[in-house]
């Protein structure tokens, strides 16, 4: 990925926000015990996380990188940060970097913000925090005990110069129109700009002069499995810019409804499973930095395969219809029966419904139900073998 290949290796390699970067270097160079922690606030993709890691690398510190999800509760903070802060002389030269600290608010916050503020008041190691926004109440309390430095979006022409430099190294070019479109779409987000450029250049279809900038899911999935090379497939994958859950579902429904042999199906489903596990972990921990690895997992689906075509639904139409219409009726029936039997609806449907239907079929049970249920009961009885 170009965004990894061209990630700055030293702070002077970064682009934009020159004065804030210099201020951060000065803060770090002059740091001593008791110096107020530094809070970097700015939009995504402009180098807040990068500068944290580069500072540690350049100044020879041992970085302890955390995310808001790691410091959500007081107990987590005590578990992770207190040992570091209490054993500084033994641990070498640690520095703490808490990324996306504005994510600390919300229903999941069990005293994390307050405990963090207590630690920030008495820092005995350099502490750096990064946030996209600083206007919530929790962020206001964090701002009181930190020094804030703002990172702003990079000016578009400077982004163009930076991008031209990458294109030169990659020995490739973008048309002026595409260049402006990429810069406009990225909205000052360097990482997004580089990813979009890479996807444009590897997903471009010269014969139709269409690019996959705003590709719809159906075209994207079909193009992915028709790609002539893994690079082309990767470009298409990056261009399918939809929610991660929808992306996984789109591949899943396309694969399970295609006519595949069991070995191929097993291989594809293994990849989908890995992608699903990654997304589950992200949702649970709220560690959204891991999302960058989703496409690296999904690319393993690539194989030029004419059998796979996009399908929105992962079931056949007749089955889908039955689930929709008959499902509603069964749900209504189970709700009534569950009350009579003092069970939950799901327990009735799972455990009792087959027996009830069997008894009705053998005329050993008569139920006083509305006539509207007659059709569904007859249908379900027919399915009993």
């Amino acid at each position, binding site marked *: 990925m170009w965004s990894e290949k061209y990630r700055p290796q030293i702070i002077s390699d970064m682009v934009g926000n020159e*004065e804030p970067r210099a201020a951060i270097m000065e803060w770090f160079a002059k740091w001593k015990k008791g110096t107020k922690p530094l809070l970097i606030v700015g939009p995504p993709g402009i180098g807040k996380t990068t500068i944290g890691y580069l500072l540690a690398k350049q100044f020879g510190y041992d970085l302890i990188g955390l995310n808001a999800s790691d410091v959500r509760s007081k107990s987590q903070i005590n578990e992770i940060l207190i040992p570091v802060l209490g054993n500084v002389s033994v641990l070498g030269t640690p520095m703490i970097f808490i990324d996306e600290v504005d994510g600390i608010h919300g229903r999941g916050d069990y005293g994390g913000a307050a405990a963090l503020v207590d630690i920030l008041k008495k820092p005995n190691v350099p502490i750096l925090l990064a946030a996209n926004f600083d206007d919530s109440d929790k962020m206001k309390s964090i701002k009181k005990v930190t020094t804030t430095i703002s990172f702003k979006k990079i000016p578009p022409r400077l982004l163009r110069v930076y991008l031209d430099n990458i294109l030169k190294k990659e020995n490739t070019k973008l048309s002026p129109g595409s260049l402006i479109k990429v810069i406009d779409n990225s909205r000052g987000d360097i990482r997004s700009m580089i990813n979009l450029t890479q996807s444009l250049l590897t997903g471009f279809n010269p014969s139709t002069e269409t690019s996959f900038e705003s590709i719809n899911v159906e075209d994207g999935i079909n193009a992915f499995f028709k790609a002539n090379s893994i690079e082309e497939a990767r470009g298409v994958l990056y261009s399918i810019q939809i929610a991660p859950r929808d992306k996984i579902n789109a591949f899943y429904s396309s694969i399970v409804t295609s006519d595949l042999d069991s070995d191929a199906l097993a291989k594809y489903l293994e990849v989908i499973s890995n992608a699903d596990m990654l997304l589950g972990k992200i949702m649970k921990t709220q560690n959204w930095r891991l999302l960058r690895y989703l496409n690296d997992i999904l690319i393993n689906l690539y194989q030029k395969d004419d059998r796979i075509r996009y399908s929105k639904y992962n079931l056949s139409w007749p089955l889908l219809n039955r689930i929709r219409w008959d499902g509603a009726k069964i749900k209504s029936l189970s709700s009534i029966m569950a009350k009579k039997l003092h069970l939950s609806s799901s327990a009735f449907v799972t455990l009792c419904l087959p027996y009830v239907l069997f008894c009705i079929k053998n005329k050993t049970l008569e139920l006083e139900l509305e006539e509207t249920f007659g059709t569904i009961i007859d249908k379900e009885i027919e399915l009993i073998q």
Partner: protein
Amino acid sequence: MVKLKSMKLDFGQKCAQTDELQCIVCGSSAGCSQCEFQDICDIPNVSQLCICKKCSDEKNAFDSYQKSSKKKFSILNS
């Protein structure tokens, strides 16, 4: 009356200054009013040093940018 006029001019000039970024390479104005990205640049909310058209069209524009950044902010060389 004269004083009011001159105050008005100063106010106007101050407004104009906030609409122009500075070129980090040559030090002159970045030429925001003629910039090809004028429509998509939120001038007050972007990083305040940019690069002018002339400097950006030079052969090794990014290298020039980096050299100028390091010269202007020597601490970045640390």
